[in-house]
């Protein structure tokens, strides 16, 4: 069976006036239909760069990205993205933000508002339909951004630290929601995160990346039963996965920290 998403020897160097920054060493990865992959790695290791390449926002890179076996350049209509930065449209209300991709696709007003309302409810924002983003908290805005991407019904979902702005409880509940939708729609998902527990809770496989230039240090298969939820988190096996991943990650993260401190003192 051809993988839904195939990343083949993808590498990236950014060229700046001060020379090149090697952000990614060649990375290869096959993702099956319906699989949930998490990518975890120290800050600056090229996670967002990888997502932007797969999502088609960065068009100059080495290697190839294939969807259903066909090479793609540029944005693909089956791929939806949630970004790390604040990305709601400040001039649109919550419901109009969520309805945005439907409006762009020409879905009639009544229909798109109905679907947007359902999605807002799904992310726990019913009652906030008519609020503008400036009237909502950072976590609420990020939930709007997630709902907006889900409205697009992408077969492949790329998420760059979507839960980073959320408090722990909301993060767990929303993670459950995303997992539930993902399993219902059999969506193929690539999640970037800093949170080890979150990666273990949600994923079939966790990719650990090295410090810059990023490569894949190790791939951990998470062999926990599905359907999953945040209830998993107390378990013994869960704890073992988290500990093992942290063991690998600690060296890489401390390299990042050393560089930061070196930059500060030197």
């Amino acid at each position, binding site marked *: 069976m051809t993988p839904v998403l195939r990343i083949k020897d993808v590498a990236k160097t950014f060229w700046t006036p001060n020379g090149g920054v090697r952000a990614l060493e060649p990375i290869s990865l096959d993702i099956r239909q319906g699989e949930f992959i998490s990518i975890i790695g120290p800050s600056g290791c090229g996670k967002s760069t990888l997502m932007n390449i797969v*999502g088609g926002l960065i068009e100059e890179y080495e290697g190839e990205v294939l969807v259903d076996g066909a090479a793609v350049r540029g*944005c693909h209509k089956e791929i939806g993205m949630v970004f790390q930065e*604040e990305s709601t449209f400040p001039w649109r209300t919550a419901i109009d933000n969520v309805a945005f991709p439907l*409006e*762009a696709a020409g879905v009639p007003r009544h229909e798109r508002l109905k679907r947007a309302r359902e999605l807002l409810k799904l992310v726990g924002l019913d009652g906030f339909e008519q609020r503008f983003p400036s009237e909502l908290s950072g976590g609420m805005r990020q939930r709007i951004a997630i709902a907006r991407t889900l409205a697009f019904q992408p077969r492949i979902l790329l998420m760059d630290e979507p839960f980073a702005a959320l408090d722990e409880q909301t993060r767990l509940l929303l993670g459950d929601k995303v997992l539930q939708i993902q399993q219902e729609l059999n969506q193929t998902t690539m999640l970037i995160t800093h949170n080890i527990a979150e990666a273990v809770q949600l994923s079939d496989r966790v990719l650990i990346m090295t410090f810059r230039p990023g490569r894949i240090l190790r791939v951990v298969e998470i062999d926990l039963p599905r359907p999953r939820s945040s209830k998993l988190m107390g378990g013994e096996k869960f704890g073992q996965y988290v500990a093992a991943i942290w063991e690998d990650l600690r060296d890489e993260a401390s390299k990042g920290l050393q560089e930061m401190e070196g930059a500060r003192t030197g």
Partner: protein
Amino acid sequence: MSTITHTGALRRPPPIVTRFLVLAALFAVWEAASRAGYVSAFILPPPSAIFQSFEMLFVHEGLVAAFLRTFAEAFAAAGIGSLIGVAVGYTLHRVKIAGRAFTGWVAASASAPLVLLYPLFLVIFGRNSATIVAMGVVGCMPPIILKTKEGLDNVRPVLLNIGRSFGLTPWKQFWMIQFPAALPTIFNGVRIGLLFAIINVVGVEYLIVFGGLGQLISDLGDRFEIPGMYAGILFVILVSVCFFFITEKIETWLLSSK
């Protein structure tokens, strides 16, 4: 908490009060200087005389009609100038080489007395409203062009990426993301442009002695109605200042409601 704001308010009156007090003090000094004979009442009449002649302006000189005419012309100019200015600003944003070549010149022209171009339009259109509106258009364009370009240049890249990831056509990318994101900045440019249009319209009306407040002031001067002339000038200044504050209020209100 409330006591702090309370004493703060006592120590520092709101800006509108300070502004008014400064103005009143200025008038008082001027009045005193005029009465004491330090300045000739013929060259610079005392404020009391100027205020008295306001009535004459309203009743006999058609101040209201002149005001409406000037503002209609300024608004027409700003409307036309907005259409052209936004299009030019968009071009400077879109065509990078044009942006680099022309933006500096547009910025320089904003500080030049463009009103002096009036003979050119006088030749083209004749001594009529068209010349006045055309001068208003010229005057209001620089800020509108610059602010449009600035607004479009500064749209956050992540918002554009959202559009790209949803596969928006370039047309929708512009109308659904870039333009609304830049709109507050563009509106700011249009507001400044409108003020520049008023200045130019009154200036040209004065220079070619045709229509509106500028002509009124010019006429009064020719008839040596000096207090009336100053009353006219004062009226233009007051109206412009009020206009500045009102549009500023509208702008912040529009921004806060979003």
